């Protein structure tokens, strides 16, 4: 599903953000990407989203090498993944329903499909009753659920989450994580960049540990800081 082959990324500033990273995340897998801030995990996410280009190496997503993907094909690559951010990135002047439907407008879904699909994902994330509310009327956890619903609404093959619990209190963080787990159970590949140590330790999922741009550990059922 996602494969990095000897990928390095050097920014124009000279910072070597990722050094010769190779890993492979299979279809249906749940993987954590952990590391301190500045370790390079955000860069890894950006490379997956093709927001940044690798300096060397190849990135293969859904069996396709995206290294030489033309810029005008990038939107279609991104439609195969649902993306969740630490700061939710909801549109403040649109209701919960509209925020989710928005993602479907973009892929030119039919109105019928939108009317059917949006309530379905909203009930999946437990927000059926709040469809008409605006983001500022919701708690952080609820906002992140909206973001998750938006990521899920087009049935992507994978969910990429960059610090999805970074702005949430521990209890809410757990809600979001178990929701991600549930989504994973339904067959969607989930990649979560995080430094929520406790959660990672308890969930016993695959952990890819990155430090100073180098993948130092790739543990199939690991914790946050197992000895290297």
């Amino acid at each position, binding site marked *: 599903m996602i494969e990095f082959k000897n990928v390095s990324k050097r920014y124009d500033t000279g910072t070597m953000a990722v050094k010769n990273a190779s890993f492979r995340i299979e279809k249906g897998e749940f993987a954590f990407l952990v590391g301190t801030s500045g370790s390079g995990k955000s860069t890894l996410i950006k490379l997956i989203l093709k927001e940044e280009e690798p300096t060397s190496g190849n990135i293969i997503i859904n069996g396709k090498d995206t290294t030489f993907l033309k810029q005008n094909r990038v*939107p279609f690559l*991104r439609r195969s993944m649902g993306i969740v951010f630490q700061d939710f990135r909801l*549109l403040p002047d649109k209701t919960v329903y509209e925020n989710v439907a*928005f993602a479907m407008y973009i892929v030119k879904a039919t109105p019928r499909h939108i009317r059917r699909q949006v309530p379905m994902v909203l009930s999946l994330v437990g927000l059926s009753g709040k469809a008409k509310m605006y983001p500022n009327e919701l708690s952080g956890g609820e906002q992140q659920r909206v973001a998750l619903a938006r990521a899920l609404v087009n049935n992507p093959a994978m969910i990429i989450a960059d610090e999805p619990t970074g702005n949430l209190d521990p209890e809410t963080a757990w809600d979001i994580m178990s929701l991600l787990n549930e989504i994973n159970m339904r067959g969607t590949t989930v990649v979560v960049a995080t430094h929520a140590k406790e959660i990672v330790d308890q969930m016993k999922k695959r952990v890819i540990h990155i430090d100073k741009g180098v993948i130092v550990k790739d543990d199939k059922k690991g914790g946050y800081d197992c000895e290297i």
Partner: protein
Amino acid sequence: MRFNVISYLIGEGLSNIFKNKKSTISSLMIMCATMLVFGLFFVIGENVNAFVDNVADAQEIRVFIVNTATDEQVEQVGNEILSINGVRNVEYVSKDDAYDSMREWLGEEAVAGYEENNIFPASYNVTLTDLELNEEVQEQIWQIENVEDIRSSNQTIAQVIRLAKGVRIVTAAILVLLVVISIAIISNTIKLTVHARRKEISIMKYVGATNSFIRWPFLVEGIIIGIISGLISVAIIGLAYTYIANKMSGSDFMEMISWNLLEFKSMFNLILTVYLGLGIGIGIVGSSISMKKYLEV
């Protein structure tokens, strides 16, 4: 594209306009102002053109034929004049016609005795397709045999033509200036909207929106501002022009040049087309310029 997508994109464009009332209104006002300045020169230009055409119709070259010419030679002169490039029509005035008109003009006594011995020459009244060819045509007529004399008031014609040309150049220059200024203004207005919505744009990019999908609402915004400015301008120009034309009709000046201003009706279609074309074109170019930077995520 499906209908709901189109209506979504247009709806977004419309809501942009209402969200940024201040910048929309200021760009509307400036676009109207420039369009009005252009419109002012445009209506003046149209009137000068119409005046030139009017003068052209009244202005003829009179070609007098030598008295000794035979009927065949006279006909020959007529045919040769007609074959000159730039001549629209020739009208034959026979010696008898000349005598009649002289008698009418000067009175019975003045022409008495000339009826038998007609000294008034036959002539051709030549009308031109293009006034600017006046001098060339005259030169060529001089080459024709049996031509006695040519009369034409080419002095006035040349001046009027020069004036018409000047107005056309100024109108064109103003048009170019208008386009440049308006593109700058509208792209700035849309830059504000784009900037206000950069977060939304980046979200759209992450969800997989294509650049053209993101661009459309802003294009719609630019186009709508352009169209509205065009409509407002055409209304203002129309009302002001009709008012002034009414005031001027019957004034001494208009009597003097024996001519009336064009009715606005006759220019309406052209000016509306030009305004809308400009508005839409400027809207598209302006919004495209302002979008460029924000599409690179």
